[in-house]
């Protein structure tokens, strides 16, 4: 659609701009100010220059949390995206099954994040949880509190449980918009199931898959509440992701300077990634 050039449209955007700027710009400026100073409380600040940035860039702890978080995002994308496509392809398209599937599948998305954590914390407990109890009856010595591997598996399964439906719903929205004529043409051509998927369904889902990957990557990159409730970042630091580490540093230890420097680096990474995703998405749209 060709749009008219009209700078008065700024007045329509103004409320949104003020509302978001209040909560985004002022805190961001404050974080930048903190990141170059040292404090011992009482609003007394001392100039520290780039010291905290240097410390963060050389900090083993930060590197470890960053790597852990990237690894986590990679794993959940590798599981949730194919699984979501598979489920969306097999969803019913008509009849009573559609609303039932949609409502039941969206249910985990609307549970407060710390309740999600609580549900899985309880579910995995060996003494009272169904999963923990079943696994220990099968002879597996499952213990997410002490075994880092088990903690990781629990956090990943929890995230798959929590967010795969988002991918399913997005893909489903893409699939139902395919006209029936496409399938008939494929049938006349005697196309295989794989060919139908590869040349009809996948191209139609490209767009929504991009949104799904973008949202899932960003949200998993800033995951905080769910793993915090289940594992508290432990055992040791094995499930301490970036946000958990950041809150530990800022609120737990009150190290404002290092926490602020870490926030800025974290934010710059997010900014660069969102720009890449956004550019890919808008250019993809422009081509169509």
């Amino acid at each position, binding site marked *: 659609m060709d749009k008219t*050039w009209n700078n008065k449209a700024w007045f329509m955007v103004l409320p949104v701009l003020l509302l978001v700027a209040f909560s985004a710009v*002022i805190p961001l400026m404050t974080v*930048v100010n903190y990141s170059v100073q040292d404090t011992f409380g009482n*609003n007394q600040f001392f100039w520290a220059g780039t010291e905290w940035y240097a410390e963060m860039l050389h900090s083993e702890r930060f590197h470890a949390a960053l790597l852990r978080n990237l690894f986590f995002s990679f794993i959940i994308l590798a599981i949730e995206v194919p699984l979501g496509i598979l489920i969306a392809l097999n969803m019913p398209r008509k009849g009573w099954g559609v609303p039932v599937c949609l409502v039941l599948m969206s249910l985990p998305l609307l549970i407060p994040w710390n309740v999600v954590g609580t549900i899985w914390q309880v579910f995995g407990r060996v003494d009272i949880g169904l999963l923990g109890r079943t696994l220990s009856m099968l002879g597996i010595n499952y213990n997410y509190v002490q075994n880092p591997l088990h903690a990781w598996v629990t956090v990943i399964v929890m995230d798959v449980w929590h967010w795969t439906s988002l991918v399913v719903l997005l893909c489903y929205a893409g699939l139902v918009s395919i006209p029936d004529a496409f399938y008939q043409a494929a049938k006349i051509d005697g196309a295989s199931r794989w060919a139908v998927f590869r040349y009809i369904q996948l191209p139609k889902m490209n767009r929504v898959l991009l949104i799904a990957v973008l949202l899932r990557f960003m949200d998993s990159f800033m995951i905080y509440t769910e793993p915090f409730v289940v594992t508290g970042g432990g055992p040791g630091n094995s499930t301490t992701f970036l946000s958990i580490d950041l809150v530990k540093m800022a609120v737990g230890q009150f190290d404002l300077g290092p926490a602020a420097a870490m926030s800025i680096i974290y934010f*710059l990474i997010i900014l660069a990634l969102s720009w890449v995703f956004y550019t890919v998405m808008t250019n993809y749209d422009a081509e169509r």
Partner: protein
Amino acid sequence: MNLSWMAWTWPTAIFFMTILALLVGMAVWEYFSPGGNPRVGVLRFETTRGDRLFVSLLGSAFINLAWLGLVGPNLWWALALSVVYAIGVFRYV
């Protein structure tokens, strides 16, 4: 209202004023020559001058961080490098 918790310092204030001045400058430039001079550069997709400014600023931030992490705390050289980078971005991207 007490705003001392924002802990302003001169260097950060100058930093944000520079960014603001850049944005105002871009707006004025855009007002007198609208459209943003879109072209397809080395990145193989269309960019306007606003995009080029964003890429320059974000890239400069990473250049400074990399300098701090790999070379040392003297950031004036990193700043000079960023300016060269920004000129490159505005020329070729």
